[in-house]
């Protein structure tokens, strides 16, 4: 897999004016994201995950070190808009990222900024709306849509620009369960069917469990970086940095601790249910066996 985003030894600190001690967010961090990957970044508040994400499309620039996107250095001012076109970004609050008063106008916003031909804008807007499944609302006012729909409008606004990577900074944090589900489905679809690299910053472990790779950050450093199964098997370590594991994993972990043999690499509710059933059957069979043995005596 080619490295699409590559950070080498980057450091960043928020410098407050007339404050001699700037707040260091991360120091000498190495990080890569491959082309076509679906990466989740986890970490509790203040772990530097959002700050890192803002480096991916040159909203923030590293103080030291180098970050390249598809071979382009983010420090290079001439490439700024090329980078921003390749790496789109979706934020937490859908209300604060929709610019226009009509859905389709908003989706067109990025393309208009890029100076794309009007007929081409029309085509791409329609395609983008189609791919996130909100074509029927294209002439609506954004404030009449639900949270999940608004967030999908925001995503459509990004994919209309044909980026190769989308960074989503807690896109589901302000949504209800249904909206969260809609957005997650859209994200997975974009990755699987359109080959778009996705960086998903999230607080929801169940969402992270659906990704290919999970990166756990703590106080500006990468703590764990592996497949979801591998990462979530470190239940203790995750808890120590203020994170949770998916509920399914947690059940298995607790059962294991209580003395039942359960696999610890369970992520989905479905798998968990299967394993529980197996456990019940096993215990039941064992009991029957014990009862039989007892009867023989």
């Amino acid at each position, binding site marked *: 897999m080619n490295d699409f985003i590559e950070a080498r030894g980057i450091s960043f600190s928020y410098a407050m004016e007339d404050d001699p001690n700037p707040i260091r967010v991360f120091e000498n961090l190495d990080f890569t994201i491959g082309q076509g990957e679906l990466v989740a970044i986890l970490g509790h508040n203040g772990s530097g995950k959002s700050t890192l994400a803002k480096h991916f499309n040159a909203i923030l620039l590293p103080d030291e070190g180098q970050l390249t996107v598809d071979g382009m250095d983010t420090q290079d001012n001439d490439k700024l808009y090329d980078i*921003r076109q390749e790496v789109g970004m979706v934020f937490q609050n859908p209300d604060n990222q929709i610019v226009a008063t009509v859905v389709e106008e908003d989706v067109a916003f990025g393309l208009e*900024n890029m100076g794309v031909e*009007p007929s081409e804008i029309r085509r791409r807007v329609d395609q983008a709306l189609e791919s996130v499944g909100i074509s029927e609302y294209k002439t609506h006012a954004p404030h009449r849509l639900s949270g999940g729909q608004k967030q999908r409008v925001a995503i459509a606004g*990004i994919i209309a620009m044909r980026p190769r990577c989308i960074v989503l900074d807690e896109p589901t944090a302000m949504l209800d369960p249904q909206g969260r589900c809609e957005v997650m489905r859209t994200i997975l679809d974009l990755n699987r069917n359109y080959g778009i690299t996705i960086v998903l910053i999230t607080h929801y472990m169940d969402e992270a469990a659906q990704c290919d790779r999970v990166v756990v950050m703590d106080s500006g450093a990468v703590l764990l970086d592996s497949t979801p199964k591998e990462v979530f098997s470190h239940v203790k370590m995750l808890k120590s940095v203020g994170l949770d594991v998916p509920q399914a994993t947690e059940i298995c972990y607790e059962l294991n601790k209580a003395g039942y043999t359960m696999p610890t690499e369970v992520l989905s509710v479905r798998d968990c249910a299967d394993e529980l059933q197996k456990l019940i059957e096993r215990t039941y069979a064992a009991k029957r066996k014990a009862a039989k043995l007892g009867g023989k005596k």
Partner: protein
Amino acid sequence: MLRDITIGQYFPGQSPIHKMDPRMKIIATLLYIVMLFVASHPLSLIVGIAMLVLMYRVSGIPMKMITKSLKPVVPIIIFTSVLNIFFVSGDPLFQFGFIEITRQGLMLAILMSVRILCLIAGSSLLTYTTSPIELTDAIEILLNPLKKVKVPVHELSMMMTIALRFIPTLIEETDKIMNAQKARGADMESGGLMQRAKALVPILVPLFVSSFRRADELAMAMECRCYRGGDGRTRMKQLHYSHRDWIALCIMLVSIAAVLLLNRILA
């Protein structure tokens, strides 16, 4: 409670006036205002009234909307009429003690009030039949020549668009903050004017703070979408003048000519 506020007064529709190019609608409205001020005789204003009735008929906007739009200007009309009737000197029509009503005064009063009425009703039709976004687009294009003298036309229209976009969001937010403050025991419905104004402070402060935060986030989201001002920007929706717009322009010009002619005849 705040949710009932409608932004602008746009009535969506399919009439020929709705379908007109918003730029031409603005031009036509300006011409209509010119026509009203060109009319120097109450009778020539009949053209103005006829145009008004005709336009409302064509647009399919209910006539009762005229009265609704005129309500706020009634005090102004009464005020100017009274001034004109009693204080314009000329041939006396009616005398009662020191009060004197002149023919010229009466004429001027009628002329002014009809003028104001038509002006308000006519320009309301523009906002009734044009969506705010079309209006901002049209204003941006019409003001484009001013860019040469360094007027930030694109920035102004972007500000208008964003303002329109955030009105419902901020109304919702105000509603939430009001409820939150009420839940903490804030009293907003009783007391005198000063007390009520003071009660607004705990609503306005959080509203301002959150607006600034929103502005910050929006600016970042716009940057992420390659926003870099109006240079080199294209628009998805292009405006086109059609034959409908030229006909409308002709009608306006002909009616101005008619008013001028009537002025001549009646003078």
